[in-house]
């Protein structure tokens, strides 16, 4: 029975078209992921060289004045890339891979972007995640929309009905053949990605694997349900494509619009101005306006002299500190707003498998907005350690030789890739089960 069903399926035009489409776009998407990884590597190499050379050059110029030297020097913190990023590039194209910062106020440097072509950002990356989320459902729809209606319209259904007692079983097997084919392609592409992109088969890879399978299962159930309504081909095609448009385009876009408008982030712009004014206005104020707050944070420098009528580095870096200090609350609010955007999106996504799939692929691949926020947090820590490591030496008017520059190579930030299986799988699983049960109930009447 199955071999016949397979044979008849392999002879259809839609089989060939689907296979060609999925494989071509799938392979393109894997190579785009490869290119993305190569670009990351190049950027990191450039950053490492840049830091080494700029330290060498600037130390030669400003050897005597550590304060001035550190005005210029930039220190790099890099998110250590993992090849799994390339499966779902997510927000990692908008948010920079690394940040090179001086020990001056951080707020003015933290949000600097990398160069990206906005046309590309708008159209989005053609990564494997896109192929799975958008194209696999389309192929399923194309192969199943006339599962029953075709037989009905060609008149073969009545012959079949006369010959078999398990009509629903027949439809189910026919569907199974098609789903199986889609799964074979899916698994093939995932393993191909793992091979070409050299992704280790760790927990996160298998989580992406399971999430993808579950997602395709969801669409299979949906197609089965549509078939179980026993309508004609045109109706099925129209309805399924409409559902696809609603689930992959309209609902996510509506939610996105809603989230952006409901949680606007004017704090981002406010913090930017507050930081500048918080620092710059101190130039025209008494030294105490700077030093009181700075000494509160760093009491160990209480006894350092701050001459009232001339420039001193302790005052200068104190002013820079005050820039960040002035923007601190607003900046924290901004981060909170972005977290809120993410929380709300994730909550709504629990009910919409397409959104859930996209957000969880991004988070499993470490390319979601939260991982960038984590990076920024660790950048703040990195900046703080740098400053504090240099303060005493600068304030003691040491020369550049007092610092062991070999320890200041570009540093890597290790991302946290942990996740919860339950939250990952349960929502889509439940929705799939409900739809499958509904379809089964409909088919029992057959």
């Amino acid at each position, binding site marked *: 029975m199955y071999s016949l069903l397979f044979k008849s399926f392999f002879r259809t035009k839609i089989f060939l078209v689907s296979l060609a489409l999925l494989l071509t776009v799938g392979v*393109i998407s894997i190579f785009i992921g490869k290119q993305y990884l190569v670009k990351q590597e190049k*950027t990191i190499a450039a950053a490492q060289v840049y830091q080494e050379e700029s330290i060498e050059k600037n130390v030669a*110029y400003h050897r005597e004045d550590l304060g001035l030297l550190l005005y210029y020097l930039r220190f790099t913190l890099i998110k250590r890339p993992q090849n799994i990023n390339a499966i779902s590039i997510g927000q990692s194209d908008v948010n920079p891979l690394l940040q090179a910062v001086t020990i001056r106020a951080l707020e003015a440097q933290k949000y600097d972007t990398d160069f990206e072509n906005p046309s590309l950002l708008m159209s989005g990356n053609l990564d494997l995640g896109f192929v799975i989320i958008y194209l696999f459902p389309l192929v399923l729809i194309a192969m199943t929309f006339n599962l029953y209606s075709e037989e009905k319209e060609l008149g073969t259904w009545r012959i079949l009905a006369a010959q078999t007692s398990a009509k629903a079983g027949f439809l189910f097997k026919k569907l199974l053949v098609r789903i199986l084919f889609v799964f074979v392609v899916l698994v093939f592409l995932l393993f191909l990605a793992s091979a070409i992109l050299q992704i280790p088969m760790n927990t996160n890879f298998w989580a992406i694997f399971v999430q993808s399978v579950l997602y395709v299962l969801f669409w299979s159930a949906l197609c089965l349900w549509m078939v179980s309504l026993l309508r004609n*081909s045109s109706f099925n*095609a*129209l309805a399924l494509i409409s559902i696809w448009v609603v689930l992959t385009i309209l609902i996510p876009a509506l939610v*996105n619009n809603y989230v952006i408008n409901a949680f606007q982030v004017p704090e981002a712009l406010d913090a930017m101005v507050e930081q500048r004014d918080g620092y710059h206005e101190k130039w*025209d104020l008494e030294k105490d306006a700077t030093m009181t707050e700075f000494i509160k944070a760093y009491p160990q420098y209480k006894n350092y002299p701050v001459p009232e009528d001339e420039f001193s580095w302790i005052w200068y870096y104190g002013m820079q500190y005050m820039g960040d200090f002035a923007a601190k609350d607003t900046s924290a609010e901004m981060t909170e707003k972005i977290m809120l955007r993410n929380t709300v*999106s994730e909550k709504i996504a629990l009910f919409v498998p397409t*959104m859930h799939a996209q957000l969880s692929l991004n988070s499993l691949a470490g390319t979601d907005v939260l991982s960038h926020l984590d990076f920024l947090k660790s950048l703040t820590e990195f900046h703080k350690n740098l400053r504090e490591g240099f303060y005493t030496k600068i304030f003691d008017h040491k020369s550049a030789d007092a610092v062991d520059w070999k320890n200041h190579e570009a540093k890597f930030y290790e991302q946290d890739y942990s996740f919860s299986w339950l939250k990952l799988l349960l929502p889509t699983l439940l929705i799939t089960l409900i739809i499958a049960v509904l379809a089964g109930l409909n088919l029992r009447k057959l």
Partner: protein
Amino acid sequence: MRKNVIKLLARQLWQNAFRSKVMLIASILMLCLLLFSAYSGWVNYHDQNFTRDEIQDEVKESWENNPDKHPHRMAHYGSFALRLKHVLSVFDLGMENFVGNAVFLEAHKQNTVNFSEASMSTGLLRFGEVSLAMLLKVIVPLLIFYLGFATIAQERENGTLKLLIGQGITRKEIVFGKWLGLWCLSLIFLGAIFLVLLFFVLIESHDTMHADSIFRYVVLLLAYLLFFGVLSAITILVSAFSGTAKGALVKLLGIWLLFVIIVPKSLQAIGFYLYPTPSKIEMETAVEHDLAQLGDSHDPNDPHFKALKDSVLRVHNVEKVEDLPFNYGGFVMSQGEAMSTKVYLKHQEDLYEVYGKQNNLERYSAFVNPYTAIKNLSMAFSGTDFQSFLHFKDKAEAYRFKLAQDMNQLQMNLIPYKGKAGPDTISNEYWKEFPPFEYHFLSISDIFKNELMSLLALVLWGGLALFGLLRLSTNLKAI
């Protein structure tokens, strides 16, 4: 062709459409989407511009309220440029949320334009955004296909096409009647959306912007009219050349998926694959490298700056820089600023050239994909395309350069060279004289120049559609 026959056929298509459930569901859905996108587009435009206007004013005030100080300190105090949205961004969001919104302008340094909405968004942004234009570009074409796939194929299946021809109605009348009916049907959606948009344009445009906005609006309206005409023609043609209505539907859905979703994205991705771009750190390294080649102002024996000094001394016929009639420190800084800006802009131009190449693959596809043509036109005339962003960025950079150089000039004229007696600060009256940043949108003629190709492609598509319909008028198969 008899006008009344065509009208009759068109009206019949209307009646059929309004009797079908598709039209009812589509209309309700479109109405909800229209209300939502008009509302969210407006809120976004209004709130964002309000915030940015406010901050821009704040920036101006704090600039002017600075006390007397050294002009170079003011050059470092700097200013901010905030990108204002065009009122038509309510219509088409385009790249609006993918480009930065604010940039810090200071001496010596070209900062990136930061705080794009995308950088503060979740992964959902990649599903796209709902805007009035998105409804017209993505959803309405699908509706046109839904409503029109059966027009001729179904009549032929039912045998009514034969009857029509038998009654003396010419093929041309049938083809153009059906086409007109379908096109007019799509204009319901177009009309509703543009009516809402007109309201926004009228209440928001200020005196100087009024003519500009209206003009942009009219171009958009005409472009979409033509686009829908082309889509209706494609629907009629596919329906006529398909054996069954079902076949026509499947083909049309395939066309929609391919041309609206898959091809534009794939071409953009392939463009990116073919033309790699440097990262910021790579470009900064290259800029520093080029600058070091030209000269190093830190090095007292640098040939470039030494030659500069010698020539300045010679021209003014003095021995030492202290004897120059202006502050030599300010002079060196202004030369350095001009030099570094020139080098930076050269590299930036190269980068944008690569972006251009990356985008061209998709842009040229307008000749095979009318969706691409309307997409680019729609963004450009709504002021939300890449060129509009670059225009802002260029203006901001020009302002930054002027700010730095004016401050250098003040230093040259009014601050005594180091070691000489005299005040180290100048009056804050000078800050007030420096004009604040003001942005004016790209002119219409520039937009036409940028989008000439898309316009040409769309007009060609119009011609092609007409040609197709005329051909069909002679060889439409009745059975």
